[in-house]
């Protein structure tokens, strides 16, 4: 039913392809700049990334609100003998991830500077952007896998080349961990195509055609789904395959951490939506107790681990584990609220955690330490910096009125309908989040600064300008998320109805009572408190 709208709103200009190509071209140009002109690369990188941002904003502007299907679809045969086509499209789920990618990279480029070899650094960064955007846009299994896999390379080089003391270990761990995961996905992906081709009568890697045309036997679908899910679980990351994340985050250069937390982790959750729920509705519904449990474990586990970290960056990394747990919880709760919450939480987590990493990076720039113990009293010497950190932190804690709350609350509200007890436990994550972040804040910013921290410089103008968009987004998304939600919801509804078509799952609709203002959908007689398909 999604294929039906495929092609709607497609424009003459292949904007999606352009979104991928602009960074690539930028990267090549940067790489080609002669060593003798060290100032040029940054300019080029900035131009290309800003160009990408502009394109993504244009995409968002011309996006058909209320259209559940894929838009701006462009499809060209790529590898004909294998039935692979360059098939791109964007829907409510991927739209804002693309925009987020477009927003984060210019900020990362401006806000951080590598200490050596700026040229390759920028080139890799742009490559990374192309890869992430590509994987968000691709509607062809092969294309998706290609991009999903290619992002490892730039990230690997960013960490290994510009990271901190243990960078090589962290980078290698990250690369191998993810590659191992995606190995399973590759097999599963090919198997999916092979089995689907038996139903379709022809071989194609086209996501939509497979999803529409093929119906997998329950057991088959489950195996295939798990092959995919392993890769995504590693990427998200879910406990217990999360241990690459703290190392990668801690060792990565600031820009790397920002991008890693901002967009790359989303590849996992996005994959779960697009290639789990959409491609294998039956299997993902069947296996949801597992995922819900893993998600909740991740929330609590990550929060607890974060509490006891002594390294500020590591703490933020573990908080990412917890936050991503929320997203997975929402994904596998199968309600409009939880799924919309999951999608919007991807954006919000990208913004908040990205900003947090940026700030931690600034602290490291100034003090050359990430150890919480060595930092104290910063609020006295750098109040504005502290204020910025405070706002970002509050959004990460999930204080209403800031963006972090919107996602978490929607996820929990929706999950409560279908996964009550998991939600009850997950809600503890909210308490723990306050605990570890405030404690860290107190240790780092409160108290009297000792002599090392006396000379801590205040927020510089450039840094402030970089931070400003983040703060703006944090407040805006917290106060008025409606425009975003409106664009997300149709795709989510389509996704859920797809799950309902393929399983005995029925999304529980709470009773809507007379006298309810605001446009609620007409009530169906579902008993609100009962939990369909649960347990």
């Amino acid at each position, binding site marked *: 039913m999604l294929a039906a709208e495929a092609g709607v709103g497609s424009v003459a200009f292949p904007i999606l392809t352009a979104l991928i190509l602009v960074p690539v071209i930028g990267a090549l140009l940067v790489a080609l700049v002669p060593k003798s002109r060290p100032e040029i690369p940054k300019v080029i990188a900035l131009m290309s990334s800003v160009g990408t941002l502009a394109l993504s904003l244009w995409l968002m502007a011309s996006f058909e609100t209320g259209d559940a299907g894929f838009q701006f679809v462009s499809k060209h045969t790529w590898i004909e003998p294998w039935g692979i086509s360059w098939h791109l499209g964007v829907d409510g789920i991927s739209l804002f991830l693309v925009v987020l990618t477009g927003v984060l990279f210019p900020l990362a480029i401006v806000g951080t500077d590598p200490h050596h070899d700026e040229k390759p650094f920028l080139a890799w960064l742009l490559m990374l952007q192309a890869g992430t955007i590509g994987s968000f846009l691709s509607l062809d299994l092969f294309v998706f896998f290609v991009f999903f896999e290619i992002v490892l390379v730039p990230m690997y080089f960013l960490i290994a080349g510009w990271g901190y003391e243990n960078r090589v270990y962290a980078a290698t*761990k990250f690369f191998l*961990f993810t590659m191992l995961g995606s190995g399973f996905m590759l097999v599963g992906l090919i198997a999916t195509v092979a089995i689907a081709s038996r139903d379709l009568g022809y071989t194609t890697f086209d996501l939509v055609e497979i999803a529409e045309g093929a119906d997998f036997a329950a057991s088959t679908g489950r195996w295939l789904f798990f092959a995919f899910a392993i890769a995504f679980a590693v990427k998200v990351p879910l*406990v*217990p395959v*999360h*241990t*690459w994340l703290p190392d990668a985050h801690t060792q990565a250069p600031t820009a790397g951490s920002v991008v890693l937390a901002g967009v790359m982790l989303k590849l996992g959750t996005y994959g779960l939506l697009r290639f789990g729920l959409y491609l294998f509705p039956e299997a993902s519904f069947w296996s949801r107790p597992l995922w819900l449990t893993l998600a909740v474990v991740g929330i609590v586990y990550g929060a*607890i*681990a974060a*509490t*006891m970290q002594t390294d500020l960056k590591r703490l933020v990394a573990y908080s990412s584990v917890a936050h991503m747990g929320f997203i997975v919880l929402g994904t596998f709760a199968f*309600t*409009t*609220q939880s799924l*919309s*919450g999951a999608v919007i939480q991807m954006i919000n987590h990208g913004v908040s955690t990205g900003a947090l990493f940026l700030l931690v990076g600034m602290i490291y720039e100034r003090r050359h330490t990430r150890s919480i113990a060595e930092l104290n009293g910063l*609020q006295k010497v750098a109040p504005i910096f502290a204020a910025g950190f405070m706002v970002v932190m*509050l959004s990460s804690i999930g204080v*209403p*009125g800031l963006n972090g*709350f919107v996602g978490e*609350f*929607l996820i*929990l509200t*929706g999950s*409560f*309908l279908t996964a009550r007890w998991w939600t009850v436990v997950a*809600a503890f994550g*909210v*308490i723990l989040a*306050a*605990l570890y972040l*405030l*404690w860290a804040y*107190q240790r780092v*910013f*409160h*108290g*009297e600064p000792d002599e090392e921290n006396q000379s801590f410089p205040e927020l510089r103008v450039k840094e402030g300008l970089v931070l400003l968009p983040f703060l703006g987004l944090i407040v805006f998304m917290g*106060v*008025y998320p*409606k425009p975003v*939600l*409106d664009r997300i*919801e149709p795709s989510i*509804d389509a996704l859920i109805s797809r799950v309902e078509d393929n399983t005995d799952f029925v999304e529980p*609709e*709470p*009773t*809507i*009572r007379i*006298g*309810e*203002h*605001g446009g*609620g*959908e007409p*009530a169906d007689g579902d008993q*609100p*408190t009962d939990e369909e398909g649960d347990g």
Partner: protein
Amino acid sequence: MADLVWLIPAFPLAGVLLILLFGRRLGDPKAGYLATAMVFASFASAVLVFFDLLSRPTEERATVVTLFSWLPVGTFQVDMAFLADPLSIAMCLFVTGIGGLIHLFAVGYMHGDPKFSKFFLYLNLFVFSMTLLVLGENLLVTFLGWEGVGTCSYLLIAFWHTRESAATAGKKAFVTNRVGDWGVMLAMFLAFSAVGSLSYSVLNESAETGELAASTASAIALLLLLGATGKSAQLPLYLWLPDAMEGPTPVSALIHAATMVTGGVFLLTRINPVIAASYDWVPTTIAWIGVITALFAATIALAQNDIKKVLAYSTVSQIGYMMLAVGTGGYVAAIFHMITHAAFKALMFLGAGSVIHGMHDEQDMRKMGALRTVMPITAGTFIVGWLAIAGVPPFSGFWSKDEILLFALAESPALYIVGIVTAILTAFYMTRQVIMVFFGEAKWTSHANEAEAPEVAEGEEPAETHHAHGEFKPHESPPVMWIPLAVLAVLAAIGGVLNLPKLFGIPGGISYELEHWLEPVIEFGEADITGTWAYDNKYILVAIAVAAALAGIALAWLVYLKKRVKPWEPTLFANGWYYDAAVSWFMGKPGRDGFQAMTDFDAKIVDGAVNGAGVAVRESATQVRRGQTGYVRQYAGIIGIGVVLLLGWFVVIRGIL
């Protein structure tokens, strides 16, 4: 007119933005006056709305103003909407009114503080959030305010963040409140799954029409109660409030006495139909939590020497009374007491602030005494507050407390007895405080250095705060500070008129004003307990209450002024029944160890497994590598064995078998 309700939060918000932009330029004291002006403007608009509602027939006294759709997802439609109805407006009136006075006081109190403008930024932000809390049309907007005031209280408690104790207190307040918020959030989820909406109208309506299952209603009520215990500092979550006294005194007055801490009571009142719809034991639970907290806190207050700590515990105790009222159905009484308490407790806190100000940041009552001579206005106003809280007629506290005790007895004698005992204790420890501070002989003449009293050293504020004052000599505060005191004193004195009972002499025309006003929101009123023994014998209750108050005062008089009886201040009370200590120990020791263990598990076991795999590969490879000896004959041997195995497979297994 009532559509302008959005102005009420708008003004403080504007204040926030203005100070955010120009605060540093305005500086001390202009920023303060700006903030104050904003709050009073908000108060004015509240008054406007009030009269608008008043001009309407009773049943139409509710207007919903929807600004925009906040979280619209499928069936989950939450608007940023305000509900202007008697309850919310009543709350707004005293929140903004008293808040304005406290702002004014703070201008004087915070004079000279380097972060003067930031202080008022926070203060305005708080008022904004508080108005959101009370005006919220649905649980989520209320929650927005709820969390907002929590955040502001965190910021303000930790206002002097260079002080470790302040920072810790702030964190403690936030986290403890979060525990309560957990309940509130779950309540919201439950409400949504039950009635598909978070708006109070829908929720209450469904509760009244009985659509809401008793089980669900009870669950919602209890979860919200958990939230209330957090926000309103009841057992078991009260312990952040005493520490919150680390904040500047106006903060304690505004947030931790008058307004925020009553949020829980307000919330429960707001959803009173749900409580009504739930099982009978739910309100009873609320009542008992309230009354036990009241007694518990009162006992602790007996033995405190920090002037603010006494007030803090008395606040906890008084809110306990309100909870008792809520639990026994006396919602009006609860609101009534909330308002009167707001007045007199704010008064007393500000008085205390004035004293501290005059005493140059001395908080230990043992170092005071006879201050009435040097700061008469403060003393006078404080005494008014004292009489009010002690429950001496005709001061406001008497009426409200009496109303609550009436409902308590109507519910069960046990509640009543505990309540009366608490009343006696209240009168006692307040008298004790008044005597220690304003009467007796002056101990400040031989002002000892801070080193003697540790908790004083703790209560030390940054020296630069009061550079303005010269060498030590208690002095009266400037007008900007005592004018609010005076106004509040008046309110505290005559506050009772809001809801006079039908008693001797009192003309019926002016009685039960508040109850009539709240009629549309709260069905359950005094009318519902008519026929109970308590109702028929009001006079006796009044007599008992007065007697209790006087008894407490007299006793304290004997003990602390006449020194007839040796003071009885057990360390058990002084240390708050060691409850705080126990909790802190638990969090610090086993809790922390548990977390550490989990973290080690992550580092050693989970990550260890990953690295272990790597090591395993390397090790096994090193072993296999030994086989590659470099001897060509051995290579041939390996090949030969391979040949034999292959032949074995083909000839034996495939061929022969």
